[in-house]
């Protein structure tokens, strides 16, 4: 039971990041490799507002989210928009460059030391079979809420319809009066916002250090690829699945005999993904054209 809760905690975090990433990839076809840094900027900004500027958490968290949103806006207009029309892979390079710049800036602005947004040990609830802290419950709740909201927007609003139109065919959407470029920006900013939420959660639940960015990006891409490129729900499901596998790998006494050494925790789920891709190259949840 505790294993499931652990997986839910880690999976929520991964789903936030991977969901936004998959959305960007599905609609723009663009790889954003500076996403891990966006996560950190959101987290570090919230840390700065809380611990240095001394603002209450209720202001620091929105502040961090706004920082992530602004950064992804900049990412889109400076590092993606001028390039992705020329060649869809160009942003791959420009966002790597941005990631490096941000790596440096994060160290310059926030220092090399690890930081935590909340210093106190979390208030832990004992639910008998498992334990969970208030903050972790809030994260899981928040993620599920965001996902529900997102699903509703996508399938039940005019905006969602436009979004799906753009995802299906850019030019066709443009010709019936959907402002595709504006939607693209919106999507990138949305993904940055979700990433920043992820960063803030890392800062609250564990601690932030400037080297986290790349591993975060890799994990998010693993979920996106395993879930079927461009399939948002697939990416989210795989984020949870990878997290669950990670916990099961080391948490279970396999065949009642031995534990897998913890050093393999990250490896085994990735091996599993390779296995899936071998059998089903389009990804676990690839279901055709439909987005979401």
């Amino acid at each position, binding site marked *: 039971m505790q*294993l499931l809760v652990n997986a839910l905690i880690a999976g929520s975090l991964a789903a936030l990041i991977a969901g936004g990433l998959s959305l960007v990839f599905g609609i723009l076809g663009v790889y954003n490799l500076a996403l891990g840094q966006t996560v950190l900027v959101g987290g570090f900004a919230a840390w700065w507002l809380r611990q240095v500027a001394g603002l209450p958490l209720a202001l620091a968290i929105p502040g961090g989210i706004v920082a992530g949103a602004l950064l992804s806006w900049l990412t889109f207009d400076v590092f993606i928009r001028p390039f992705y029309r020329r060649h869809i892979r160009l942003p791959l390079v420009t966002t790597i460059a941005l990631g490096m710049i941000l790596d440096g800036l994060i160290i310059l602005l926030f*220092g090399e030391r690890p930081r935590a947004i909340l210093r106190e040990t979390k208030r832990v609830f004992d639910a008998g079979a498992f334990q969970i802290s208030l903050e972790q419950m809030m994260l899981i709740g928040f993620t599920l809420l965001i996902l529900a909201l997102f699903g509703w927007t996508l399938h039940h609003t005019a905006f969602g319809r436009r979004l799906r139109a753009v995802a299906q065919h850019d030019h066709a959407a443009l010709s019936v009066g959907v402002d595709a470029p504006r939607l693209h920006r919106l999507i990138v900013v949305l993904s940055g916002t979700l990433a920043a939420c992820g960063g803030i959660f890392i800062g609250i639940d564990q*601690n932030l250090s400037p080297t986290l960015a790349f*591993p975060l990006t890799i994990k998010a891409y693993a979920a996106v690829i395993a879930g079927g490129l461009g399939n948002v729900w697939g990416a989210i499901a795989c984020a949870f699945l990878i997290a669950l596998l990670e916990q099961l790998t080391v948490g279970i006494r396999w065949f009642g005999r031995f534990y897998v050494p913890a050093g393999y925790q990250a490896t085994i789920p990735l091996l599993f993904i390779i296995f899936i891709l071998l059998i089903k190259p389009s990804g676990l949840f690839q279901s055709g054209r439909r987005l979401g």
Partner: protein
Amino acid sequence: MQLPPYSMKKHIALVGLLAIALSACQPAGQGGGTIKLGYIGPLTGDAASYGKDTLNGVLFAVEELNAAGGINGKKVEVIAEDGKCTGADSASAAQKLVNVDNVSAIIGGQCSGETLAAAPIAEAGKVVLISPFSSSPDITQAGEYIFRDYPSDALKTKAIARFFAEKGYKKVALITENTDFASAFRTSLTKDLGEDAIVFDEMVDPGTKDFRTLMTRLKKVEFDVFFPNAQTDAVMAAMLQQLREQKLAQPVVSHDVGDSLTLPEIAKDAVEGMYVINVPAFGEGTGFEAKVIQTYGKPQATIAIVAHAYDATMVVADAMKAGAMNGTAIKDALAALTNHVGIIGDFHFDVNGDVVGVGYVVKQHQGGKIVKVQELSLDAPSATATGATVEDGSGAVMEKEPGAAMEKKPASAMEKKGDAMEKAASSK
């Protein structure tokens, strides 16, 4: 494939430009009036706080040297390279320092992995490498030109075993981050405690922050004490928080990495009460600390690391002042050194280049501070034996007025002890 002719020309012009640009980057040249000291340490990455502190220690020493007219009239220049706490980066840093910059000596690396990777390169180039912070037992045998003014973990794990025996901790839960330093520490600790004493033993990827499932498993294990064997404070903080989140209330004992004031900052309650077994807080509350803070601001980790780096620089500078200007001469001078009065106390080096004269203390995290709770003797079983009082005396004095007014302890007692330990360690 045919290249259009103009592109060839362009290439040549570019290469030419590049060559000019590169040569412009070269410092004044070998014959110039400066002595070059290399530095290797983690200036970026998770371990960057150690890099920052040790580099500041080196720079502070060099500033003092230059203010006093340099070494034999020559100004000292520091060439700092980022080892990133990894062997690969440290090796290329060492290559550059030894073969391109032709430095007189290298202060570093800091992480044991850095030092171990740089050692063969320094050894081949006959350049002295002195580490202020690496504690892996493997460094003892790293080479003739390799020194350190930080004690080997082979001694520390013995001290820890003593402390566990004193406290009656019999069952130890250990989580190790898979780095050179931490895994060597694990080996050494397992040897000194006995394999049966380690009731939970897991090794995780470097940089892991999710220990929840390991902690869930740990709940089912009966243990007396938890030992977070992490490479960095960021990872240790995550271990401690998740340990306490699972309501595991056992005492926690850690090593050097726990001796960081960043820990209470990021894991406030979870780190409270944790014991740290480490070298004394050299330099704390002294004029040295005040001057360092004035110049570089508060240390990122502790002032003691700054002091170790400062002393490592000064001991090399002293050898050079006495006329040892090339690598081999510096090596011989350090090996022959009988006593250096530094911020960390009186020390010299044994035949393996390991420091002799630095003992251990037990500290504890109390309300956001790190407080010394007891001396830790490496001598015969009883803690109140005469051996302990020697360290008590010097330790107490050192904490108040390091370097100054130290009673001249005959180094022989300490030395014998150190040698005995070394032999025990190397005869595995």
